[in-house]
């Protein structure tokens, strides 16, 4: 074994770069592994999505950031899931995909009972978790007396990606020993075996054992240098453009505690509430619409949602992307994390979680020898190809279940040729059986079967379950009814005792949570 430390070099100083640097540097002692982040002083960074999964709580905890400081410095708010609007018929109907699993999910499949009408006639999410009522009421998922990162109802964050990168950067360089080099990279020097030996920069060469490409859409190392091909997924998920605006609001305005996703004729609009502004953007398919035809939809949306002047005085920014991912992510001694690995529309906020998972995976199986690296690379590639497939299937589900008939866009989304075969198989299966633990082949499945339940039954998917089967013995049914009573009791208790989201955020900044974890 090599006694001298190994060097990780990260190229790119956006959210992906700094989050990766933070996760890796928190994992390793600087005497065994050093982390250097090279960032161009001239290339502007793109914030990848402003929504996170609940996994971000444990990521921040591991990196060693205080939740209070994070909320304060990143203008963050607490996200309890997504509220979908107009996805089914286009008539303003809504459903939730909350982060809290259905109550008693480990022991009873409430979806079975809900489908059979045992739980009453409320919407699915409302019938299986108190989080529905809490989101509807705009309440926070916890009280100030609940310690940092602990939760009453599961939550992730909405955050200002630019501020997040800045905070991670100071923490990584000041607390975790990450070396920060501001330099323009002009080329790559290679070893005989094709490995990257160093990055050639205006500040001199930067050598390393492993190079992590966080250079964004350009994919400087994996794409440009190694020419690893890009696999477009546009034939499945058509969206390739977004028109984004930042909408300031009064500091007294309630902050939404879910991402709001509202479908329009050729895509959907995201709406993410931070402390000082909302981030709103219309995602669309350039084959079905143009920025000019989308602007009126975005304008109307803003007018209907508390911003009466609409797009006037705002400067929409057009973002274009090719939806898809690289054919492999780890090649030789280079691995891509973030946009350089791939990007898909921000529905279900998969961008940041993929960065967390990638960095964690690199940290966990960090190769100690060059020989070992090829094995690790192969495993990493298999793992992340599968994750991308899982994300694409789950996103596609939202479109396949729609009954919208108002445009070719929605009809084409349901065209069997555009549906991944694995998803089609699952849907055929779920016609006769509610998804549950059987559907989680792996512990780290990207989306738990609960997520599938929320979307399927939020969008009126009909499961013909046939006769009561063994699993629905009378005892199981009694247990389900008990769980339903608990959910109702929890809902009314939480409605009475949880603070409003905005007031929790202000109090957390002013006083901090009762305890750190």
């Amino acid at each position, binding site marked *: 074994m090599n006694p001298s430390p190994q060097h990780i070099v990260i190229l790119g100083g956006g959210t992906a770069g700094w989050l990766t640097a933070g996760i890796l540097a928190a994992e390793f002692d600087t005497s065994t592994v050093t982390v250097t982040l090279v960032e161009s002083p001239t290339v502007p960074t793109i914030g990848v999505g402003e929504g996170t999964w609940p996994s971000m709580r444990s990521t921040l905890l591991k990196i060693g950031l205080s939740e209070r400081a994070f909320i304060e410095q990143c203008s963050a708010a607490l996200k309890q899931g997504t509220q979908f609007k107009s996805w089914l018929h286009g008539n303003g109907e809504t459903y939730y995909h909350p982060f809290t699993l259905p109550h008693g999910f480990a022991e009873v499949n409430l979806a079975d009972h809900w489908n059979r009408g045992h739980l009453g006639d409320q919407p699915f999410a409302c019938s299986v978790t108190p989080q529905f009522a809490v989101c509807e009421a705009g309440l926070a998922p916890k009280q100030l007396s609940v310690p940092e990162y602990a939760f009453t109802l599961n939550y992730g964050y909405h955050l200002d990606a630019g501020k997040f990168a800045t905070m991670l950067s100071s923490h990584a360089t000041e607390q975790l020993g990450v070396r920060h080099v501001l330099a323009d990279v002009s080329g790559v020097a290679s070893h005989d075996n094709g490995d990257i030996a160093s990055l050639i920069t205006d500040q001199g060469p930067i050598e390393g054992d492993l190079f992590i490409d966080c250079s964004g859409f350009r994919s400087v190392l994996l794409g440009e240098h190694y020419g690893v091909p890009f696999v477009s997924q546009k034939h499945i998920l058509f969206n390739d453009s977004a028109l984004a605006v930042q909408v300031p609001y009064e500091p007294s305005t309630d902050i939404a505690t879910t991402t709001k996703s509202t479908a329009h004729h050729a895509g959907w609009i995201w709406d993410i509430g931070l402390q000082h502004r909302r981030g709103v953007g219309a995602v669309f398919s350039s084959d079905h619409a143009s920025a000019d035809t989308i602007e009126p939809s975005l304008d109307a949306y803003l007018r209907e949602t508390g911003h009466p002047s609409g797009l006037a005085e705002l400067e929409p920014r057009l973002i274009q992307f090719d939806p898809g991912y690289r054919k492999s992510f780890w090649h030789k001694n280079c691995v891509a994390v973030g946009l350089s690995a791939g990007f898909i529309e921000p529905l279900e906020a998969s961008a940041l979680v993929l960065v967390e998972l990638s960095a964690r995976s690199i940290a966990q199986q960090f190769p100690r020898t060059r020989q070992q690296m090829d094995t690790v690379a192969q495993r990493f590639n298999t793992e992340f190809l599968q994750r991308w497939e899982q994300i694409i299937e789950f996103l596609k589900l939202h479109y396949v279940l729609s009954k919208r008939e108002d445009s070719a866009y929605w009809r084409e989304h349901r065209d069997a040729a555009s549906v991944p075969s694995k998803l089609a198989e699952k849907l055929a299966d779920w016609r006769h059986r509610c998804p549950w633990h059987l559907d989680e082949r792996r512990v780290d499945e990207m989306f738990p079967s609960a997520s599938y339940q929320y979307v399927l039954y939020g969008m009126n998917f009909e499961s013909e379950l046939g006769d009561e089967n063994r699993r629905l013995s009378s005892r199981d049914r009694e247990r389900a009814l008990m769980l339903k009573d608990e959910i109702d009791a929890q809902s009314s208790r939480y409605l009475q*005792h949880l603070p409003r989201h905005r007031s929790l955020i202000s109090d957390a900044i002013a006083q901090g949570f009762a305890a750190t974890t």
Partner: protein
Amino acid sequence: MSQPQLSKLNSVQHASLRVSRKYSEALGDNVMTCLVFTTEMRTLQGTYPLLMQQIGGHSQPLPIALLGLENDENLFLCASESGWAGETVPMMMQKGPFYIAKEQDSTGAVRNVIALDEDHPKLSLGSAGERLFSEAGGHSPYLERIIALLENIEASHPHTMEFATALGELELITPLDFKFTLNDGSVHTLTGFFGIDEDRLQNLPDNTLAALQEKGYLLPLFMMIASQSQFSRLMALKNGKS
């Protein structure tokens, strides 16, 4: 837990009885919570989260110190000399097998007597532990301390019960349910406890606040709020053990 069989302490019958002052799981100290009294909250708040919990048949939740994060867990038990990791030990934990019992004398007057749970694991007839009585039959210094402790508990009891009732009636308590993640990734749930509803406290009318102050409830109330930062200590202890 079954009701202990109590017998009145007596210098003849209990002459050679010894009591262990140690704390351990085997000695019955592996409890998640214990009742605390208003008079001790100031000293306890720097070590334990002080919460409210519905106990037994009481109509209102009563104040408790949280000692563990799951049932039958006391994170303050350790391998030290005393077996307890905290600087200060709640009175109910200190008192061990002793109780105060009421006795009616021949005139019909009720007086307090010391009783003990004869089956308690801290009692022994061996050579280890504190003696209760001297050779001459007088109280040992240890027993004197226990008597003082029991008197303190007896004196604090009514105030604590009234405090709990007042908090309940003014709806100053709020359910506190949450999940937390340990360093090993395991998720744990804390449920069935109540904390102080600070919003309601802030919005109490002046005369109500004055009445709380008059009755000596404000100090323990704020001690309970301050104590919540001790969740950090419990989680650190739990992370250390898992």
